[in-house]
């Protein structure tokens, strides 16, 4: 068996793959956070809960209505996005004029409510979701389960798609302009409140999409959201929320670092991202890709 640094290649590659998959989730989630923050100036604490909702909707669509994974991949983000739009319109939009911290506190309360409700009805234990793609391919140095390959590719496509939409389309141009100066954009006749609602819905939908991708890999559980969201916050601090691309790259990078830590020093794998965050803050407080101090 081939060894690298005294570690079998298969173990190394296996953890690297897990790191890449976690990185895909981190990238998608921090992308959603960055998109919402960019325009709304709200840190969406409910992002984890929306991710969990995505996974649960997928599970319930299958068990309740017999709707398969591929349809859920479209339906769940739309449903959660709509819920997000309702929350934004009825409640969150009242807080824009306040200190930004109120947005964080409100979405924190929202996250607790959603998580508590699902815990009440479904218990705290995880529920499995059947693998939508069976089988694996032999890459020579390791077996790659096909579904995991799909997750990495799908997340990359969506990240790239959202980035292109923001950078290259007219809607994206409105969005970027509204980030810079909402009053001016509104005076040009663009419906900025609608743009804000759409943005929040997009962010929530992205979180739900991540949840659908995660459902067959992790157990679907009411607690899955709060476990990941704090790590994603650290990712966002490392990347700096000024740049969409920065959020994506940092997500993948830290996922891989976390995977490698599992190989070389497993005890530290749950804290490595927080440690990196602390180091980055000491060396470069604005974050790796951040412009604002």
């Amino acid at each position, binding site marked *: 068996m081939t060894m690298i640094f005294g570690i079998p290649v298969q173990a190394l590659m296996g953890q690297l793959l897990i790191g890449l998959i976690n990185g895909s989730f981190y990238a998608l989630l921090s992308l959603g956070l960055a998109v919402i923050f960019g325009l709304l100036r709200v840190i969406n604490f409910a992002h984890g809960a929306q991710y969990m909702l995505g996974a649960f909707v997928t599970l319930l669509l299958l068990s309740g209505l017999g709707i398969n994974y591929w349809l859920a991949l479209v339906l769940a983000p739309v449903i959660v996005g709509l819920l997000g739009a309702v929350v934004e319109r009825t409640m969150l939009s009242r807080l824009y004029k306040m200190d930004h911290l109120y947005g964080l506190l409100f979405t924190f309360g929202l996250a607790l409510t959603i998580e508590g409700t699902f815990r009440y009805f479904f218990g705290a234990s995880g529920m499995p979701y059947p693998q939508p793609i069976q089988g694996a391919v032999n890459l020579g140095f390791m077996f790659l389960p096909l579904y995991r390959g799909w997750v990495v590719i799908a997340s990359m496509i969506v990240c790239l798609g959202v980035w292109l939409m923001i950078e290259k389309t007219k809607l994206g141009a409105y969005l970027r302009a509204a980030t810079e100066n909402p009053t001016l954009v509104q005076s040009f006749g663009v419906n900025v409140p609608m743009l804000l609602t759409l943005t929040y819905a997009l962010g929530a939908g992205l979180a739900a999409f991540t949840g659908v991708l995660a459902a067959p890999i992790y157990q679907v559980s009411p607690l899955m959201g709060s476990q990941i969201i704090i790590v994603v916050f*650290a990712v966002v601090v490392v990347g700096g929320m000024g740049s969409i691309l920065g959020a994506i790259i940092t997500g993948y990078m830290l996922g891989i670092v976390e995977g490698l830590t599992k190989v070389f020093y497993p005890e530290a794998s749950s804290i490595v991202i927080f440690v990196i*965050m602390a180091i980055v803050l000491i060396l470069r407080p604005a974050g790796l890709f951040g412009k604002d101090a």
Partner: protein
Amino acid sequence: MTGKSEPVQSGLASAHPRAKRIRIAIIMVSLAGLLLAPHLFYPIFLMKLLCFALFASAFNLLLGYTGLLSFGHACFFGGAAYFTAHAVKIWGWSPEAGILLGVAGAALLGLIMGAIAIRRQGIYFAMITLALAQLFYFFCLQASFTHGEDGIQSVPRGKLFGLINLHDASNMYYFVLAVFVIGLLIIWRFVNSPFGMILKSIRENEQRAISLGYSVNRYKLGAFVMSAALAGLAGGMKALVFQFATLTDVTWQMSGEVILMTLLGGIGTLAGPIIGAGMVVTLQNYLATSEFPVTIVTGLVFMACVLLFRRGLIGEFFASKLGRSLGFRPDS
């Protein structure tokens, strides 16, 4: 953390004399009530209440008077509980020495976390404190002295100054009450000191405080350490009251709880966090016997507070017609 759209008057001018008299009367009545309370209520419940009231007041020192929202205060509260429990149980320290160690440990944690977190402002500050507290949580989960999921159990309360047996419930209660009152006096003195005034000026307008020549970061760090140390005082006491220290006290949910207490009672008021803590602890006690999950209620109260009464119960009362006619001001 005052909303940009609702500026708060500065707290330099003293309140109306009538409000002052009412306040003194209320403090006297509450003190008398607290002295008599163990004859009427379950002492453990009262002590829990006092511990959380002190914790929330310590937290408010940072949020209410400096404008920094820490999402990681459980780290100091739960961390101090571990330090005190370990010192008293394993090293056989006296309770007062154990609590002092808890305070010192929490202050040290506060110094480290504060030094890193104050490098960013506002919303980033909240996220950084949350992440660093989570780092501490994982440390507690894996470190051997905390005994992981079991926690440190059957911690002896010992004898205070080698004389007073704290295993007696009423002795313990009056000890906790004394520490609580001392803690509040420290906070009151701190807030009304020149240091506290500078903190308020940072809260109101950080740029202007910088341009006046204050090294803002040093003041922020000072407030952070002070707040952490007092949170540690509350945590160390809680470990002695309940005679255990567990992971629950270092979770992010606990950090959220203390924010809720402060928000519900009234950010930036001295009485607010105490009343908020009283309500949250009572509510939890009440819900603990029912099937209904606490998390949902906590979440809904959070949302309601943010949407409907951002000043909190006390703050809204001070700002109301009745409060104003009695001579109170919104931020007193």
